[in-house]
């Protein structure tokens, strides 16, 4: 690795390394959100992020997501804020965080004596923890230790022509360097499951990939959502498989190493499909209520950074991991350039090739890992959503066969 690409990560006890060192303030039920937000607010430009789970009833998926998020390599310390009567297993979560070597504190509003006292105590803890985080050891981190996720949002007719395939080129470069790359949203892959299965690293995985898309098709059918709309044909898309290829092109052309579910962290580099559609009968409504929920799941799988192509112009960022926004549409870019990191719309104006923009995205991944702030980080975006879901654990066919 040359000097220009050296990354110094924050060393964690589990061997992973972070590219950020944030403190997360976590509400364990919606009733604790205001107090948690008040604690975090004065520190919002100092790497203190707010996340949480709004539900009062227990949910194993949400509990696992929270364990993975609170022990994510980009996280240096955690403050849990509980109302006191919700069913979230706050002790279990605190133990998991403590075992991971991170500073953790739990404030129970009902025991502390209400809003004002809890906010004051929380701010003292955050201030002292921020001071201690300055001593976190840094270690040289190679590109093969990076985990990069991608999800697209606010798509338009240009997304599948510029930003999505350019992200695919960047994914190819990352996978060639043995990094971990994760793509998702099986509901948008309906029609290209056999195209995708042909890229599986083994026949058993090919069957798993097809089954995951069939599950998504069934789930969306039950919810009453068709996939190919007449408006797609007006934009020049002719077939279901063509439309899905536009989204699928974010995955690039590498072999697919495995299928994971939210919270699964791949043990080795390669390209992975994240299956975000719940297992079993349809419960709890939409698989993902918005793009932010998908970003949170990619982060729970270890993503240090998210590549986010957008055509119409999304402004989102995320708690915990930086979001790099790649604008597909040159007109959107001109209107919203302050919110964009990459102008892939140049491809439509003949000013750049897909390969050149793919290389630019790869270079920006490295620069962001080295500490460069993305536009959404600079603007203070820290969106986060976590809702109810249920999953079965992945089977043995989902992960790469050891060489």
């Amino acid at each position: 690795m040359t000097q220009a690409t050296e990354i110094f990560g924050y060393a964690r006890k589990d061997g992973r390394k972070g590219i950020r060192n944030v403190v997360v303030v976590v509400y364990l039920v919606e009733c604790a959100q205001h107090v948690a937000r008040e604690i975090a607010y004065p520190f919002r430009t100092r790497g203190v992020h707010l996340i949480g789970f709004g539900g009062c009833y227990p949910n194993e998926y949400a509990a696992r997501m929270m364990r993975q998020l609170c022990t994510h390599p980009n996280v240096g310390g955690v403050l849990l804020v509980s109302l006191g009567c919700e069913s979230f297993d706050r002790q279990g979560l605190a133990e998991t965080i403590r075992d991971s070597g991170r500073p953790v504190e739990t404030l129970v509003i009902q025991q502390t004596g209400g809003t004002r006292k809890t906010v004051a105590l929380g701010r003292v803890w955050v201030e002292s923890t921020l001071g201690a985080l300055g001593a976190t050891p840094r270690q040289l981190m190679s590109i093969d230790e990076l985990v990069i996720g991608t999800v697209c949002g606010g798509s338009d007719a240009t997304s599948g022509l510029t930003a999505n395939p350019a992200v695919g080129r960047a994914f190819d470069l990352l996978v060639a360097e043995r990094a971990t790359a994760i793509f998702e949203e099986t509901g948008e892959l309906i029609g290209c499951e056999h195209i995708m299965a042909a890229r599986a690293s083994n026949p058993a995985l090919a069957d798993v990939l097809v089954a995951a898309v069939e599950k998504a098709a069934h789930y969306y059918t039950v919810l009453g959502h068709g996939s190919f709309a007449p408006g797609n044909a007006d934009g020049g898309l002719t077939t279901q498989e063509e439309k899905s290829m536009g989204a699928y092109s974010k995955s690039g052309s590498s072999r697919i190493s495995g299928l994971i579910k939210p919270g699964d962290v791949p043990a080795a580099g390669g390209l992975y499909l994240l299956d975000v559609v719940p297992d079993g009968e349809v419960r709890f409504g939409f698989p993902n209520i918005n793009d932010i929920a998908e970003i949170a799941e990619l982060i729970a799988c270890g993503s240090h950074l998210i590549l986010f192509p957008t055509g119409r112009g999304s402004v989102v960022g995320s708690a915990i991991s930086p979001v790099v926004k790649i604008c597909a549409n040159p007109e959107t870019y001109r209107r919203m350039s302050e919110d964009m990191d990459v102008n892939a719309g140049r491809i439509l104006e003949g000013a750049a090739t897909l390969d050149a923009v793919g290389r630019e995205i790869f270079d920006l991944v490295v620069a962001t890992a080295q500490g460069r702030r993305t536009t959404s980080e600079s603007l203070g975006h820290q969106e986060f959503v976590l809702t109810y879901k249920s999953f079965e654990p992945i089977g043995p066919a989902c992960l790469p066969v050891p060489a």
Partner: protein
Amino acid sequence: MNDERLLLLSPADNVLVAICAIECGSSLTVGGKTIQVAERIPLGFKVAARDITAGQKIFKYGAHIGSATRDISAGSTVHVHNMKSDYLPTYKPEVHARHDSSD
């Protein structure tokens, strides 16, 4: 050589994608040959990169996205009037009608 207004997404493709609207009557270079555009090609629409015969598979993003339902000459638009899904019927009658009426 192809016109710079046409994007080749993958070397395996037999269609190109218009990266801007190409007006009716303008000339267009596809595969080294120059043709006259018979019908306006909107942004995002597909153009045959070479002559395609009925029944041949259409490749975009290096992937098989359907097949030709009639012979398509290089430089012609490729859409619901001359190709179909091999996955499932994807376009509804009203889409057909809309396209036919704009011919």
